[in-house]
């Protein structure tokens, strides 16, 4: 129990602390009203004029998307021999990119679900496009293992339990099947959550659209939403429940992804640290991607009032924390392999640090363990341009991490006679670049045709939404 003096003491804030509070930017620039928030966000969708930069960006994304189409066509026509992976490196770009993409998706769910449960108001203006990012990243991710089967049209009965004429069933003791269930559930739940959040905004767009076609399309998507208090009541409950359900889900998804490795007996994979280390890495890379998308979005769409420096700061801080958990994971891996006393484990680490792929190992240490320390400095967190560049580096660093985990463990395993080197082919790069194209193309379409920021949630944080205290709520 605090005595009145202590309470009084706590009230008397030092000038430095008061200055710090004053320097903390708001989650929304003051002066906004229901109308101004609604107009600013819906204008980007309903406006007939598309910014010229949008066409430029979409064109680049579209070209890469065509690269993806060509790659997939060749892959299905020729077979997965066009990729560089071969015994002993049977998993390479396909699984590296799968883990990279699925990890990126995790930040979207963290922002939309976990931060909602923690009542973090700053999530409001970034949750919509972060959730969209999740969906698109999961779509890109799912493509890799599916195409790695070589015959995706047959993969259905290998992966999904349905009564087929051969009487075959999937093998549920394999982590790869767990992965199918985890990723497909994750994709489904993310889509439901995203669509649920969109419905009241669809109603807003339906009511504000001028063109009859837009009115019809948004009208259908709005499902007849009319803002009834009875509906809001259940809606808020469903939203909270979905957030509560998504929270363990998102933690489970990357844990299950890590089981793909940890359940095997390969040196460098068979480690108990994997699930938490993978989840932290996923959130770290995901926030890097949110920052990569948010910085240009707020600049080119004039959303600086909604995605303020507060959001940029907080995202940088989340990256700092999760980045250091990841760095702790690296230290742990090195310690385990030394402490295990097992020559295969020890050689794996020695090979990572000094072997043919050492340059990638040290690059990822440089980025994920050393460079991230810059985020301690307020000057760095204040510099949006620098943060954008650093976030791109983090995306690269996390990709390298997956490369190192997968390739260095496989290319030199127990038997030196089977050692070999892995080299990706241009089709590997084509497929990777292609999914980046798919991701960006979907994202460009999203910011043009759907509200990139949750309008109704933004309305709840403007001062107008505050009720006076006389009601017995």
């Amino acid at each position: 129990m605090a005595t009145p003096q202590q309470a009084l003491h706590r009230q008397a804030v030092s000038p430095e602390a008061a200055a710090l509070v004053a320097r903390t930017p708001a989650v929304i620039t003051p002066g906004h009203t229901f109308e101004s928030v609604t107009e600013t966000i819906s204008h980007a969708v309903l406006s007939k004029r598309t910014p010229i930069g949008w066409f430029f960006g979409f064109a680049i994304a579209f070209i890469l998307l065509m690269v993806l189409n060509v790659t997939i066509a060749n892959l299905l026509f020729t077979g997965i021999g066009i990729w560089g992976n071969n015994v002993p490196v049977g998993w390479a770009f396909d699984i590296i990119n799968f883990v990279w993409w699925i990890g990126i998706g995790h930040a979207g769910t963290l922002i939309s679900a976990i931060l909602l449960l923690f009542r973090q108001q700053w999530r409001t203006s970034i949750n919509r496009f972060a959730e969209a990012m999740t969906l698109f990243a999961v779509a890109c991710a799912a493509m890799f293992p599916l195409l790695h089967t070589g015959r995706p049209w047959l993969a259905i009965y290998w992966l999904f339990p349905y009564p087929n004429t051969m009487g075959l069933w999937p093998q549920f003791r394999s982590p790869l099947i767990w992965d199918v269930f985890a990723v497909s559930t994750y994709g489904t739940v993310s889509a439901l959550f995203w669509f649920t959040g969109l419905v009241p905004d669809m109603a807003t767009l339906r009511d504000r659209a001028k063109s009859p076609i837009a009115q019809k399309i948004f009208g259908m998507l709005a499902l007849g939403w009319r803002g009834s208090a009875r509906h809001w009541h259940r809606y808020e409950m469903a939203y909270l429940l979905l957030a509560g359900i998504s929270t363990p889900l998102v933690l489970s998804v990357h844990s299950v992804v890590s089981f793909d490795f940890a359940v095997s007996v390969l040196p460098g994979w068979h480690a108990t640290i994997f699930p938490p280390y993978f989840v932290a890495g996923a959130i770290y890379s995901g926030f890097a991607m949110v920052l990569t998308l948010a910085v240009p979005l707020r600049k080119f769409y004039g959303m600086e009032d909604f995605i303020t420096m507060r959001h940029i700061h907080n995202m940088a801080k989340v990256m700092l924390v999760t980045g250091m958990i990841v760095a702790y994971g690296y230290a742990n891996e090195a310690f385990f392999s030394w402490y295990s006393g097992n020559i295969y484990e020890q050689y794996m680490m020695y090979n990572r640090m000094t072997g043919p792929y050492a340059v990638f190992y040290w690059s990822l240490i440089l980025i994920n363990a050393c460079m991230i320390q810059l985020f301690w400095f307020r000057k760095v967190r204040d510099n949006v341009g620098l943060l954008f560049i650093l976030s791109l580096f983090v995306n690269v660093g996390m990709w390298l991490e997956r490369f190192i985990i997968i390739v260095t463990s496989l290319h030199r395993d127990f038997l030196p006679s089977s050692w070999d080197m892995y080299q990706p082919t241009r089709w590997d790069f084509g497929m990777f670049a292609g999914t980046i194209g798919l991701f960006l193309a979907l994202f460009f379409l999203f910011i043009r045709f759907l509200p990139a920021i949750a309008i109704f949630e933004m309305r709840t944080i403007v001062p107008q939404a505050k009720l006076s205290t006389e009601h017995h709520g």
Partner: protein
Amino acid sequence: MTHEADAPTVFGLMAEFETPDGLVTATEKARLEGYRKMDAYSPIPIEELNEALGLNRTRLPKLVFLGGILGGLGGYGLEYWTQVIAYPLNIGGRPFHSWPHFIPVTFETTVLGAALTAFVGMWALNKLPQPYHPVFNVPAFARASTDRFFLCIEATDPRFELDATRRFLQALHPVGVSEVAP
């Protein structure tokens, strides 16, 4: 329209307010006045309206819990049936019913069952999608999804009387009161 005489002439009366406060106060007063068949419409969720309208706790959480249980049982049952009965395989000498291997999928199907129930259940209880509703006949209602707050007292309420109810709503200082065509 064959039964023109029986068809109600209005769906209800709708008052428009500028602030969430105005709407909550009006709803509380309408409830004190004895009106029950009414609904409030707002561009943001307002928790205080639940009490003002006398809304019960929704049964959605119970349904979601059931959905999760069913999903989990379904997932585990599927694994048991396929791995033990329909297609038993010896994997590294493990028992056919090697339950620890079945947990991850059981977890995922639990989540899936709960999430699908939350989604489908919420829209079903809300009776959405609904292609037509009379409140959209009021032109001012277009702002209900931006910055205006509405209270609609429906004609089916036993205390509803076109003139008396209109006078009551006018006394609440709304921006305006309009008849809602059915």
